[in-house]
């Protein structure tokens, strides 16, 4: 079922999800994306550039954060615009991993175009890791 624009109100939550990341997730994303920067799989390299340890690819966090919106909209093609600002790293511990939480709310409605802007709050350890995370979704 495709959500109906007229039923939406600004501020209402349309989707929530949490994602458990492990080092395996980072290796999998490195292979799939071609981003083999070693700060995403080697603690020694991460520490040598002043980080406390291996962190998730920002593009992995961006990529998974929109998935609850895709499932709500019913089709990945409905996401016509998606932007984020990378504000904090997601450190992925070798043994316990990391949990990224996503809450998706209606940010704005463009009724004439049949488009809704969904604003994402993406957090790790209680702090937001993405800023201005917005997906425009075509419900027409």
């Amino acid at each position, binding site marked *: 079922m495709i959500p109906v624009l007229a039923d939406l109100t600004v501020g209402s939550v349309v989707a929530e999800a949490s994602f458990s990341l492990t080092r395996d997730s980072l290796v999998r994303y490195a292979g799939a994306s071609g981003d083999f920067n070693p700060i995403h799989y080697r603690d020694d390299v991460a520490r040598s550039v002043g980080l406390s340890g291996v962190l998730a690819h920002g*593009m992995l966090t961006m990529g998974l954060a929109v998935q609850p919106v895709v499932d709500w909209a019913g089709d990945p093609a409905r996401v016509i615009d998606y932007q984020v600002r990378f504000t904090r790293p997601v450190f992925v511990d070798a043994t316990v991993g990391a949990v990224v939480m996503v809450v998706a709310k209606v940010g704005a409605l463009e009724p004439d175009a049949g488009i809704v802007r969904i604003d994402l709050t993406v957090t790790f350890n209680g702090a937001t890791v993405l800023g201005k995370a917005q997906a425009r979704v075509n419900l027409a």
Partner: protein
Amino acid sequence: MSVNPELQGRVFPPVAPYLVGREKVREFSRAVFATNPINHDPQAARAAGHADVVAPPTFAVVVQEATLAQLLAEPDGGIDFTRVVHGDQRFSYTRPIVAGDELTATLAVTSIKTLGAHAMVTAESTIVDAAGAHVVTATSTLVVRGDE
């Protein structure tokens, strides 16, 4: 070396065409926790009106990557790869990417701003299909840290 302000407005030659494979779309989908059947199953994709499986919204980064490599390799660019942090990212679609697409990306540097010792480089990769029609524009802002 610091970022060359003359990079602003520079347009790079198109990179070699990228052929979107069905298994690559599935592999990328698994990597970003995309479980929608339209990302994985050609029949589900066709039932939704698409020619083949649809790539997740951030898949365009795979096509964009070769253009950013051009920028970092530019001899007079002054961008030190080891000092680059990804600041912002945006994808603006005219139509979704589907398996079978042959995509060509062209990079333009749209803005260079300095903020103290740091430089913010905004690079826009325009991605078109085999017919030359616009598919998606991928925009990255890179923060290049200066000497402290």
